[in-house]
């Protein structure tokens, strides 16, 4: 069945609500508006206002309430409309959701899923174009997933709900219109995936940058460089086994990250490759990241600020010089 990434997300949500009465969805405009990105469209009508619950503009409170509800026996799916607004409830995520299980001596689990849209690319300017997945991946106690494919858009939510601990699911509006086959194979949220087999260089990417990495790989193939593309999928904890296996084979790597370069998740990948595969490298690992600038509104500047297939190609090519 061919569906869009958006529709895959929607079906994942629908199945989650249908499958467990403890699951409910809460967030700004998830109900009557139909979801900012139409991801929850029709769910209010199907499940009613108790289970598809519109919240006022008060991110700190409704994220915290999601944590409390999880502790109280429910399985909340909290939608923070976009990652840009997730700084407001960040304290609850970091200082309660992530900490509670350990700090209580293991008494509590927090079976909570937080979904948010992330990333740039739609000319929304500086305050609406952040990519903070890397920040969240810094925090022990959270699992972070980034669906880049139709199957993952559909299946990662269910896998997250099965975890009994806080999982953050990042959704990529830049991918919402992409379409593809939905398979019936269940997805895990433990492993990275090799999206393209290759031999000479490994391109590591996640979320909205995966299609860019694949497109770069095609261009590289035309130049005779056969690139392997690894989709991280899970940003915490990192599945370094998959990354390292690929790097050990290709002996070269480019890490792609939509976050600002300094202190991005890409740095962590590079550091781990340094620590664990230094002697397997034929060249220093390269990075393609967001430029160190608040994202500007005009299309040409936004494009210049973000990772692009051409930049990935150039970085990969650079490893052979």
């Amino acid at each position, binding site marked *: 069945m061919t569906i869009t990434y958006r529709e895959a997300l929607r079906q994942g949500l629908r199945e989650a609500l249908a499958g467990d009465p403890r699951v409910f969805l809460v967030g700004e405009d998830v109900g009557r*508006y139909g979801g900012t990105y139409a991801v929850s469209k029709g769910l209010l009508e199907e499940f009613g206002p108790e289970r598809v619950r519109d919240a006022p*503009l008060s991110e700190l409170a409704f994220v915290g309430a999601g944590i409390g509800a999880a502790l109280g026996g429910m399985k909340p799916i909290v939608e923070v409309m976009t990652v840009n607004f997730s700084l407001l409830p960040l304290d609850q995520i970091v200082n309660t959701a992530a900490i509670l299980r350990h700090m209580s001596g293991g008494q509590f689990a927090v079976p909570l899923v937080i979904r948010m849209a992330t990333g740039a690319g739609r000319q929304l300017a500086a*305050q*609406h174009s952040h990519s903070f997945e890397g920040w969240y991946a810094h925090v022990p106690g959270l699992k972070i997933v980034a669906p880049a494919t139709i199957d993952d858009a559909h299946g990662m939510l269910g896998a997250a709900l099965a975890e009994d601990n806080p999982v953050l699911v990042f959704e990529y509006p830049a991918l919402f219109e992409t379409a593809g086959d939905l398979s019936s194979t269940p997805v895990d949220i433990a492993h990275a995936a090799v999206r393209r087999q290759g031999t000479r260089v490994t391109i590591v990417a996640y979320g909205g940058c995966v299609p860019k990495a694949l497109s770069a790989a095609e261009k590289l193939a035309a130049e005779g460089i056969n690139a392997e593309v690894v989709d991280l999928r899970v940003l915490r904890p990192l599945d370094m086994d998959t990354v390292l296996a690929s790097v050990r084979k290709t002996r070269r790597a480019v890490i792609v990250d939509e976050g600002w370069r300094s202190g991005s998740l890409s740095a962590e990948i590079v550091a781990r490759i340094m620590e664990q595969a230094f002697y397997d490298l034929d060249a220093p690992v390269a990075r393609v990241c967001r430029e160190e600038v608040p994202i500007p509104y005009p299309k040409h500047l936004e494009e210049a600020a973000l990772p692009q297939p051409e930049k990935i190609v150039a970085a990969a090519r650079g490893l052979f010089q």
Partner: protein
Amino acid sequence: MSHAASAPPSGPVPFARENSLKLLKDMLRIRRMEEKCAELYGAAKIRGFLHLYIGEEAVATGAMHALARGDNVVATYREHGHALLKGVPMERIMAEMFGKKEGCSRGRGGSMHLFDAHARFYGGNAIVGGGLPLAVGFALAAKLRGEERLTACFFGEGAMAEGAFHESVNLAALWKLPVAFFCENNLYAMGTAIERSESQTDLAVKAASYGIEAFAVDGMDVVACYEGARRARERVMAGGGPVFVEFRTYRFRAHSMFDPELYREKAEVEEWKKRGPIHTFTARLKEQGHLTEERFLDIDSQVAAEVERAVAFAEAGDWEPVEDLTKDVYAP
């Protein structure tokens, strides 16, 4: 809270004729500029998010006329009108929406991020509630510097549910700062009706709980908006601390360009359109003998010409070169 529109504003306008016409013209300037923006969005000249103020023009118009030149204004992503009437030239606003470097934010901000230091217009903020603490800070600076300067902060009723509102009003009240909180209650925050957003829908009552003066005015009546803002400014400048005004208004268009408007009835919108701030004001001025149809058409064509000039200016503008991408980034 009832979403029903009450009777349209009517009766004579208590201003001198030229003043009245100025108010009318300014409302038209916002309206025509934004109608053009909608058109340009369709033509893909303007991109990103675009939030139109159509229907709410009386608020910014009344309020800006009540402010002094040296006052500060902090607004939201629905701020084209506020920027324009605070003195940002229409052509620079239009160039900004095009993303051209002649824009008031050098094209980097777009529709949601208009800035103009000279006009003391401080955005343009796409984080709901984000402007409130900032406005408190401007007021604190004015107070510490002994400046005779109001800071007016505009925000929607949806923003009142945010912690930022609470903390900011409390701070301003505690420190008796010269700030006016202007709440534009258009009954919806995206698709969330006020009764699903505020447990207390009488917003002036809510604001008064901070121990400050608070009142509501008809936000569809430019006269009431002017009077309300003037009164607020007077009280604030008398030194007693902040004042809160609820402007009861309505948004005629969708929240942004991506909004199927599933959350409200067409009939409700039509009902409110009967109270449209421009045509009701026009009617009153005509009834009063302050305005003829001819004069109206004359004003409207002046406005149309201004809009055309602004579009031409924006079209003729340049793109910021990619080499300047990280210019003005501190510690890149």
